[in-house]
């Protein structure tokens, strides 16, 4: 390392860190984000509870037998209702009464099942009080379908209890061959792990990556950077900035993680079936890789933000490029289902080795099925190299920025400037 590079880098990191941690913004976000998250979790809980079938309904039919079978099938289904009232054969007075009950929210809706002479399929309509309830629709469809089969079976002389036995739902146990051993399938967990990484990475790139860009732009617009460049190299300026802002991010995350761990170990969580982090099903190796890919991804994207920040002339333009910044993350998210389905396909392997996609795609692959070690370490090495290259580029662009006044450089211009500086 050239003389003074390390010392200057640390000095710059220290300044960046202290100025940010002391700021009011830091205190506010540290406090507000967990509150907002808690609010979101609460909302999620509420809307999760909505994922249930229709509780009370009526069946109107001209076929009493079929209507009875639908009722039995509804009670046997995944989303069993509390009360099913059958009107068969139903008259217009029944219809008016049922409509009144829907209007006054006494029942969720009513199902009309009309068998037509000479047709095998009945005409079925579900009239609901709510606009759309996907669960309700599925609930009715499967009930009518199984009622029809029940009726056919009964017509062929199969006894009632045998029919019920045949129509029972199958319990499917999913297991997975992972790293040579059959384990309980954790595709949901792999998904969850990757999504947590995406969320955390996304949030920190948006918060801290943009912070790096802002800090670069601030130095450019206040033009203190010419003073800085007259003593420190642009490499140490960029590196120091990334480390400083990164440390701020880690501090804030540390506080939040501390809160989560505290919560997970608390009595309140125990009532919800959570006993420490282990019960969330995260292994130590996965946690380790999470750390590696989070840090790598964070530095890559922050360095990209720094490079973008160095190439613009004002604060407003920072907003415009935040899309460029997060687009590789968005692409990763779009490609996740493909990688989850084919974790060892050529496409997935190549994607996981491309540095902008590595953090999420490789982490996803590790969570589903451990890729060969060389692929994992190659991706980490490539990621590290990409971070270094991006810091180098950002430092060059920053340096050249001294010579530019009040305009954004075009790409060919930047390349020319690189030579001049």
């Amino acid at each position, binding site marked *: 390392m050239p003389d003074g590079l390390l010392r200057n880098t640390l000095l710059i990191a220290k300044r960046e860190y202290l100025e940010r941690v002391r700021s009011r913004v830091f205190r506010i976000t540290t406090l507000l984000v967990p509150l907002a998250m808690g609010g979101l979790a609460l909302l999620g809980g509420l809307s999760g509870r909505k994922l249930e079938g229709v509780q009370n309904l009526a069946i109107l039919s001209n076929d009493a037998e079929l209507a009875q079978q639908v009722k039995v099938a509804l009670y046997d289904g995944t989303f069993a209702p509390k009360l099913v009232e059958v009107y068969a054969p139903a008259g217009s007075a029944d219809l008016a009464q049922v409509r009144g009950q829907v209007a006054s929210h006494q029942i969720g809706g009513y199902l009309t099942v009309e068998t037509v002479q000479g047709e095998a399929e009945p005409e079925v309509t579900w009239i609901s009080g709510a606009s759309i309830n996907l669960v309700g629709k599925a609930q009715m469809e499967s009930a009518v379908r199984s009622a029809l089969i029940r009726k056919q079976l009964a017509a062929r002389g199969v006894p009632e209890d045998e029919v019920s036995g045949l129509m029972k739902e199958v319990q499917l146990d999913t297991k997975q061959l992972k790293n040579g051993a059959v384990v309980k399938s954790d595709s949901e967990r792999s998904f969850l792990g990757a999504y947590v990484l995406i969320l955390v990475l996304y949030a920190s790139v948006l918060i801290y990556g943009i912070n790096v860009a802002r800090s670069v732009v*601030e130095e450019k617009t206040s*033009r203190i950077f*010419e003073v800085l460049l007259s003593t420190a190299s642009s490499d140490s300026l960029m590196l120091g900035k990334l480390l400083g802002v990164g440390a701020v991010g880690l501090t804030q995350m540390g506080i939040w993680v501390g809160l989560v761990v505290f919560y997970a170990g608390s009595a309140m969580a125990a009532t919800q079936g959570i006993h420490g982090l282990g019960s969330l099903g995260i292994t130590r190796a996965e946690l380790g890789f999470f750390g590696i890919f989070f840090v790598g991804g964070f530095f890559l994207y922050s360095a990209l933000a720094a490079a973008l920040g160095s190439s613009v002339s004002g604060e407003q333009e920072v907003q415009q490029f935040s899309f460029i910044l997060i687009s590789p993350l968005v692409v990763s998210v779009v490609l996740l289902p493909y990688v989850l389905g084919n974790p060892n396909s050529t496409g997935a392997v190549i994607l996981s080795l491309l540095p902008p996609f590595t953090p999420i795609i490789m982490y996803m692959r590790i969570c589903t099925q451990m890729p060969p070690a060389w692929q994992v370490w190659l991706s980490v090495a490539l990621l590290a190299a990409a971070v270094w290259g991006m810091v180098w580029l950002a430092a060059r662009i920053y340096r050249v920025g001294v010579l530019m006044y009040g305009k954004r450089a075009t790409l060919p211009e930047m390349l020319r400037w690189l030579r001049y500086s």
Partner: protein
Amino acid sequence: MEALVELDNVSKSYEEKAAVHDLSLKIEAGSMFGLLGPNGAGKTSTIRMMIGITLPDAGKVTLFGKPFGNAALKRVGYLPEERGLYKKMKVIDQLVFLAELRGLGALEAKRRAKQWCEKLQIADSIDKKTEELSKGMQQKIQFIATLLHDPELIIMDEPFSGLDPVNAMLLQDTLLELKKNGNAVLFSTHRMDQVEKLCDSICLINRGEAVLAGGMREVKSRYERNRVIVQFEGNDAFLQHPAIAESKSYAGHAEIKLKPHADAQDLLKTAAATAIITKFELVEPSLEEIFIETVGGRADA
């Protein structure tokens, strides 16, 4: 005496425009050097090459007797023309940070920062955020930041712009004191009156080329004492004297430029014969006049 900075036939161009062309200059310890020139002449480009912010396309830059290297920058204090500070940072933190970057320890930096703030009469603002200060105060802080690490070579790009006369004087006195202590000072300006009072040597550049360079006395001695200021009562007919190249006459006050090698004594005799002369002064051309004469109508701005 050993030169602290030496530019040797340095050239630099941006895009198609040549900013500096084949420029050579030398600054010695314990001297005050003025880099002069109209706007856009290449002063800032020249300075930036001295401290490695940009590299010359051709020619050689020597700093403290060695080819340019980053280590030498700790011995230089540089105040750019467009200078800034961290707006949200406290004055003292800012000064300490900038001094630490130049190799000072935190404690020593703090001690010196306090000393300097006292000296430049801004000790009250030491715990304020920079954005709360007036522009002139911020300029003083930038000035202090440049000098905290006691650099042997002080380079200031347009240091006086935007300062009121009182503060400009304070800055001038400080620079003179530093020079007396053996530091070399280079500053660029387009204000000739300051240069004339302060500088030991100058380099006047126009369109990237040195058009006039050397010690102040020596430069001036190249020009004749051919300016005459006359104060008189009565007839101004003496202004028709053949020795006069051009003249401006105000009420009782005339500024005269003589023809080359003209006899000023004869002019005085003629004037005294027709008018009452209260003052007759033979002066050397001011640097401003030399500047205008040299750059002439060729200046861009």
